[in-house]
């Protein structure tokens, strides 16, 4: 009996899986379809049928309205933040795992406590601080807090990997006369690569998608990042819904490209560090 049940394909599971496929796909299908409509057809045509007269006008309008600038702002903020996050977290993790002093243990506890701080809650003092530092309305204003808030989880993930590096490896390198910088680069860095990949991808997505900090800490279009630009396009294009949705579609393309190029690494990298 049981054997037979086990061998039947899981019809219920497949059905449930299919339902979620529909739930996932319909909004995206609607998005792409609508972005190809002519503005005047938007009010008339059935939203789920392909446009009678497809056009790329909406995309052209978006590209003519500084989309590339917002894209490059987002890229700068993301790359800068992630590079610094990885560098300082790796250095700190090496210290936190290998120092073995009361100071290092206390520091680790302090940093881990940071995991429980809801980032959004500090926005008012962060705003005040950024204004006082004269950084308001600059890309640096977005990068500095992004780094700060990424540190606890990044350190946690990397520490878990560094901790698994056998102590003998450190000792033999020390015995060979290697300095700490060299140990960091030649031993810790390569052996914690999965963790760095996870941190890198996870934080890149966080920073790339960030909305609240750009909303509060910047104002000019010259330093506007993508998620915020979508919101402002919505006001700028107003009734031109196809144009707004074209901007949304374009904003997903860079991540889609990364996804196509390295899906396996992305997906496994995103979760590898959390699994530990």
């Amino acid at each position, binding site marked *: 009996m*049981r054997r037979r049940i*086990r061998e039947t394909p899981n019809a219920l*599971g*497949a059905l449930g*899986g299919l339902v*979620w*496929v529909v739930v*996932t*796909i319909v*909004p*995206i299908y*609607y*998005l792409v379809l609508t972005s190809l409509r002519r503005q005047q057809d938007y009010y008339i045509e*059935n939203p*789920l049928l392909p446009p009678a007269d497809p056009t790329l006008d909406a995309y052209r309008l978006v590209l003519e309205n500084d989309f590339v600038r917002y894209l490059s702002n987002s890229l700068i903020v993301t790359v800068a933040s992630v590079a610094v996050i990885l560098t300082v977290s790796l250095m*700190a993790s*090496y*210290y*936190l*795992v290998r*120092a*073995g002093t009361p100071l*290092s243990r206390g*520091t680790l506890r302090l*940093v881990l406590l940071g*995991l*429980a*701080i*809801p*980032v*959004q*809650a500090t*926005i008012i*003092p*962060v705003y*005040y*601080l950024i204004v006082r530092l004269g950084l308001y309305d600059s890309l640096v204003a977005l990068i*500095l807090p992004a*780094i*700060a808030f990424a540190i*606890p*989880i990044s*350190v946690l993930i990397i520490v878990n990997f560094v901790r*698994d590096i056998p102590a003998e490896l450190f000792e033999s390198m020390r015995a060979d006369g290697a300095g*700490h910088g060299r*140990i960091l680069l030649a031993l810790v860095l390569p052996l914690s690569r999965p963790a760095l990949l996870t941190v890198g991808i996870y934080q890149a*997505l966080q920073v790339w*998608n960030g*909305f*609240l900090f750009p909303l*509060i800490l910047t104002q000019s279009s010259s330093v506007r990042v993508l*998620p915020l630009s*979508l919101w402002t396009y919505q006001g700028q294009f107003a009734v031109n819904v196809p144009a707004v*949705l074209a901007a949304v579609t374009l*904003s*997903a393309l860079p991540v889609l490209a990364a996804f196509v190029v390295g899906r396996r690494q992305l997906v496994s990298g995103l*979760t*590898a560090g*959390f*699994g530990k």
Partner: protein
Amino acid sequence: MLHRREAEPAQPRPARQGPPFWLAVPALAFFGLFALLPLGGVAVLSFMEWDGLGTPRWAGAEIWLDTLADPATRAALWRTVVFVVVSFLFQAPVALLLGVFTAGRQRYRAAFAVLYFLPLLFSSAAIGIVFRSLLDPNFGLSRAFSPGTLSTNWLGDPDLALYAVIFVVGWAFVPFHALLYQAGVRQIPASLYEAATLDGAGRWQQFRYVTLPQLRYTIVTSSTLMLVGSLTYFDLVFVLTGGGPGDATRILPLDMYLTGFRSYQMGPASVIAVLLVAIGLALSLFLSRVSGSGRMQSQQAGAA
């Protein structure tokens, strides 16, 4: 958060010279200046009156009393509880089931998994804009069908809006958690299932007695991220409804933002921020206590 294991460094010899403290200084400097300092700042500001234009003025405990006594704050607090709990009840089972489902090696499941991943391509702002347009009762999806059907006023009806928002937030976040579960399931040794099959366990029994217990660390990680995440969730709600209709979706983080940056009452907004921090801390501690993961030692490294 995550099933964190306490720092128990693998017994370094005190005699050997460990790495110097300065290696941790850059990380600590960023963290201290832009996370800890503002955290202290928000506590101080919660006792001050500041309209965002002039300089902050000391006002004392009055702001706390006024804000806590304000029925609007209490309503927002309750709404936040509903938001967090219902979000969890929706996201966790769906993510778990999808994770288990996509961990299977069948080809169609791999294809589905690619599709499930798609929402991760979009920022919260993007998702908010799409759903706002999609759920518009006048010009949205409702026009695809004959008049009357599906023209429910999802985001405009105060009784429905919060649940509509919860659904959209779930749409955005389920994929990530499903990935966590998928990775978790794939780490379960096949031998456990073989043994269960030999014992005559059916599909449900295998799920109940093999998969679930083996996933416990993943469950703790994912649940903590979900609960603490939705407690402070802002972006999507802001773009979707801005807290409306009325104050039907004005959860605490939004209440903080609107009080601070629309009514320009930074004092009361800071009180709400401190509340958020306190609740977040309590929730994290509670979760790590419940899961007992605070005591896990590093020997379990490979187990999950």
